[in-house]
């Protein structure tokens, strides 16, 4: 009981603090009417973004006939949610099982996402806090990597993979996912802001080796940045369609994107009875882990990491 009270009390405190810190809009040179207008625009945008999620949630409860014949934004009988959900565990017409694709996706996303985050953190910290021959050029090359569209790389990538025997290999999916130019860029910027040079110098004077300094001093301060990169990387792998399409031709290795694409094509071509509800349900289940991940990681985005460390 006391815990709940104190938590409520804390929330109230936070709200009060926020109110105290908020500055009248006039001081920013805005007119009073501007704020409601902008709020309305933001609300519209939020609605626009959330509408597909609402649609998918509602239609996951419907039968195939109802999906097409009833109003898209309201429920209809019969309530077919659990039946459709159970179908996700079945192999449909030998095209593959949703749950297997889900497992594949999770595997690729965890290894690729965590790998990309680790490499980005190492590289970003290195580029931010060490000056070495070619460090600048290396960084610019990485930035340039951001600008190259993946489609431009299709043929060279496929030929390289074929030579390296990475076709139908999990490593063909995971290794490229670990290279994240945007991750390196973000981590470099974040490390520059959040890890003061003096702190590293102090750790060196204290006799710390570079690896120990990274893990014991720098990394804890980079956590909000690391979490951001982790989320971006995991989502990137989770949603990646092009790469797995290129390298996998066995449906047991497919991730969700390619698997659902296969079902989708099948549904359009054959008019198969239960494929549309399964596609809707599949889409819903696909986004749930990402929302969960976001909610779990949210608490790591906090400011004031350096409070008390460096006097100005």
């Amino acid at each position, binding site marked *: 009981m006391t815990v709940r009270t104190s938590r409520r009390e804390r929330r109230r405190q936070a709200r009060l603090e926020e109110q105290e810190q908020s500055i009248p809009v006039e001081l920013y040179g805005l007119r009073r009417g501007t704020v409601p207008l902008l709020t309305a625009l933001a609300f519209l945008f939020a609605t626009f973004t959330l509408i597909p999620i609402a649609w998918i949630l509602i239609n996951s409860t419907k039968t195939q006939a109802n999906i097409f014949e009833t109003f898209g934004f309201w429920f209809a009988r019969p309530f077919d949610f659990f039946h459709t959900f159970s179908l996700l565990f079945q192999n449909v017409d030998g095209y593959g099982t949703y749950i297997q694709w889900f497992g594949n996706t999770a595997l690729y996303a965890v290894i690729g996402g965590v790998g990309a985050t680790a490499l980005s953190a190492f590289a970003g910290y290195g580029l931010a806090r060490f000056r070495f021959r070619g460090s600048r050029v290396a960084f610019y090359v990485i930035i340039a990597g951001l600008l190259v569209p993946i489609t431009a790389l299709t043929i060279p990538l496929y030929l390289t993979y074929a030579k390296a025997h990475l076709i139908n290999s999990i490593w063909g999916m995971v290794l490229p996912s670990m290279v994240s130019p945007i991750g390196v860029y973000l981590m470099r910027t974040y490390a520059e802001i959040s890890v003061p040079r003096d702190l590293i110098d*102090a750790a060196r*004077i204290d006799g710390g080796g570079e690896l120990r300094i990274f893990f014991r001093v720098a990394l804890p301060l980079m956590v909000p940045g690391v979490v951001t990169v982790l989320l971006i990387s995991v989502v990137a792998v989770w949603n990646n369609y092009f790469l797995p399409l290129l390298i996998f031709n066995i449906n047991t290795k497919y991730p969700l994107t390619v698997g659902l694409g296969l079902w989708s094509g099948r549904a359009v071509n054959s008019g198969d009875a239960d494929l549309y509800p399964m596609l809707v349900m599949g889409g819903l289940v696909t986004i749930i882990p990402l929302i969960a991940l976001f909610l779990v990681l949210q608490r790591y985005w906090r400011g004031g990491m350096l*409070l008390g460390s*460096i006097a100005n």
Partner: protein
Amino acid sequence: MSAIGLENLSKVYASGVTAVSGLSLDVDEGEFVALVGPSGCGKTTALRMVAGLETITSGTVRLSGRIVNDVSPRVRDIGMVFQNYALYPHLTVAENIGFALANKGVPRKERNRRVREAAATLGLQDLLGRKPRQLSGGQRQRVAMGRAIVREPAVFLMDEPLSNLDAKLRVQMRAEILRVHQAIGSATLYVTHDQVEAMTMGDRIAVLSGGRLQQYGRPRDLYARPANLFVARFIGSPEMNLYQATLDDSGDLVLGSQRLALGGRPTPLEGRPAPLEGRAGRPVIVGVRPEDLLLGPGETTSSSGSGSASASDSDSASDSLGAGTLTADVRVVEPLGSEVHAIFSIDAPAAVDPDLTASAEETDDLLPGLAYNGVARLDPRTAVRPGERVTFRVDPARLHFFDPTTGLAIGWPGDRAPDQAGARADSA
């Protein structure tokens, strides 16, 4: 064998900026040396070269006799306190202090004992479980010290450790640092821009300007015998009054329209053989400390005129005041309780400080009638008021002379260059 030995140490940045140039000095075992100078004089760069955090362009750094130019900071056996403390924000006070010991692989039990010991030395026992953000500025400062002393390093480096504290706390921490220094006995190199800190704390002081050593010696020697104009201005507060003057044929000093008799002796200064010999008819810069200007008894007269009235309108009057006196118009009086600073104007051209942008004339434009070119430190019971004309008695033996072209002090044996004078000025 000295604990720290710098030999001809130089640092030139890739941009071509020279931060430190030919710096040579020794710090003996257990000695506390203050490295002082204005901001940008290269003192922090020099300290960082000793720590190994900055590459050395040329010269050598020796720690306990061993050349360490290419030795990593982590094995130099130094403790360092940073200007901004640089505490590990996510670690507790105990973990901050014990970090170095953990790096060395000291067993936990031993580590805890030594952390508690260091904490006790600094009065941090009750704060060991706290994070830096839960500490006050003074406590953070102490944690930074604790982190440095816990390893009992051979050499202790401090980079303006008190500059982030308020004035009162700074005075307290000054004493605290000296106490800790005496307790651990490590050779200490202490960087500061505050000459008061340097004077009160240093066994010896090295004055740096423009990356060059100006003088190195005991505080009282630097104060009593500054090697050049820079040191004369930098050490002492209020700073030394400096005027352009000429030595006339009779051996008197002529400052503007005033004449200061040196008692007919060309060698008025104790221990200085013939300082002004052969300089008759040539310009010199003469310096006098604010406390060496003594108010002549009953010599104050009310100045009838405005600020424009100065000694210049009474050449004969100033002559008649006799040997060793100067006439001045008091502009501002600053009572400090223990003493009074009388800010005055005197009809003598001040020796212009090349580092100051505003010249005397500009000051006059800004504050007409308030231009001043000197300060006297007087007894607090002195009844001196702004607008008064006063006469100061000056003991010629307490005057300082400098060559206007080189800026070097005149009168010390050999008239050595400041860099050379620095090395062993204290032995004089």
